């Protein structure tokens, strides 16, 4: 249990004050409601589409091609030829004045056919009159680029500086492994979502109805207050009218009630995976914030605006449960 002897008197006082805000009211550490039995979601047989990943030769070839493209040699010739990339500056008044104009001689891009033809043979720094997008313009050649064809080699592989990967065949194996890992991670996210859906439906819950309503109301109020911040006249009118204000929160509370069960499940999954968030973590977060921003414990508003407890505990469990589900999904792949 957290006591004043474990933290400074000022910090403890602030911590107690935080515990009594609406923000924390919906994130009690000692909920009566809970998941009585977490459904053993990992024991279900995975559907066929989640059974594993395949890496095709095409995918490995694509990875090798990326290596080749990455090491394309770019030359800057003096004279423009077809196939070059050319960066020009427009010198004529009007639409293109001072704009960078890119030309790709030989590609015959619509509107630039004549300019591409006229550019061939010009040198860097030279200006030439031409037609671009139906307009007569004068372009000045700023830069010419040309790619030289390259082929994947052991030397190219070594430039990547990957541990134990020095030859083309080793790089192909590295590609296979990389693609496989990437596909496994993507698949694990889908499996995690499937685990979650099953666990939500099949776990057994013990719900304290009054607590659920209070939680939903506090959460709705918290989000409604956030909505009102920075909103216009309409929001101000609602905030100033107690009847309208209560009605808005009641409506949102009804929507939040559905979320309560999910919140309990996220806590249960995270807890089962070793993730816990309690008063000690809240207190530590406040103390860290005060130190980090060099704040004074008496500046409650300043600290709360920095520490942003809003939604924090819920995010810890939301992300924590997702992390556990993905970890469990990956373990089965």
């Amino acid at each position: 249990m957290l006591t004043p002897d474990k933290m400074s008197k000022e910090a403890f006082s602030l911590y107690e004050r935080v515990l009594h805000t609406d923000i924390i009211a919906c994130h009690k550490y000692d909920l009566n409601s809970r998941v009585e039995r977490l459904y053993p979601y990992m024991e279900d047989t995975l559907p066929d589409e989640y059974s594993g990943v395949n890496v095709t030769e095409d995918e490995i070839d694509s990875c090798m091609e990326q290596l080749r493209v990455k090491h394309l040699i770019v030359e800057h010739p003096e004279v423009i030829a077809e196939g070059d990339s050319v960066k020009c500056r427009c010198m004529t008044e009007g639409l293109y004045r001072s704009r960078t104009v890119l030309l790709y001689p030989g590609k015959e891009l619509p509107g630039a056919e004549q300019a591409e033809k006229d550019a061939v043979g010009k040198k860097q720094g030279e200006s030439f009159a031409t037609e671009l997008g139906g307009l007569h313009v004068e372009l000045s050649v700023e830069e010419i680029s040309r790619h030289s064809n390259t082929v994947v080699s052991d030397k190219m592989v070594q430039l990547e500086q990957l541990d134990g990967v020095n030859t083309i065949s080793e790089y192909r194996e590295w590609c296979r492994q990389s693609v496989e890992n990437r596909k496994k991670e993507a698949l694990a996210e889908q499996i995690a979502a499937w685990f979650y859906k099953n666990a939500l439906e099949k776990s057994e819950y013990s719900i304290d109805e009054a607590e659920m309503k209070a939680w939903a109301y506090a959460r709705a109020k918290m989000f409604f207050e956030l909505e009102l911040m920075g909103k216009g006249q309409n929001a101000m009118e609602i905030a100033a009218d107690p009847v309208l204000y209560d009605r808005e929160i009641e409506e949102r509370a009804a929507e939040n009630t559905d979320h309560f069960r999910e919140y309990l499940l996220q806590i249960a999954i995270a807890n089962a995976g070793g993730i816990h968030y309690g008063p000690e973590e809240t207190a530590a977060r406040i103390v860290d914030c005060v130190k980090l921003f060099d704040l004074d414990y008496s500046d409650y508003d300043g600290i709360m605006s920095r520490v942003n407890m809003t939604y924090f505990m819920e995010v810890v469990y939301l992300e924590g449960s997702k992390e556990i589900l993905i970890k469990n999904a990956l373990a089965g792949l």
Partner: protein
Amino acid sequence: MAYIDAKDDNFHELISRGFSVVDCYGDHCNPCRILAPIFEEVTTEMDYIRFIKLNTEHNPGITREYSINSIPTMLFIRDGEVVDRTVGVMPKEMIEEHIAALLYE
């Protein structure tokens, strides 16, 4: 020129200056697989244009922000502003036509 894999947190920076073409794709989308090599072929041919690939499944923030409701979607961007967009697979020549619109219109 190779393409750049964009993420939710670096996308805006990548497209903020110059000319960019973005291939918005998904891992489990067959048309996206057909478009991928065509897109890669274009990326190797045109210097100065920034070619970007965005995995919509891994980057939901940008996907929502740019209302990418179908994939593959290609965004044609000049100095951070989307000037053109296409949906579906298209031949290389059509991609180059859209790039021309980005450059010369």
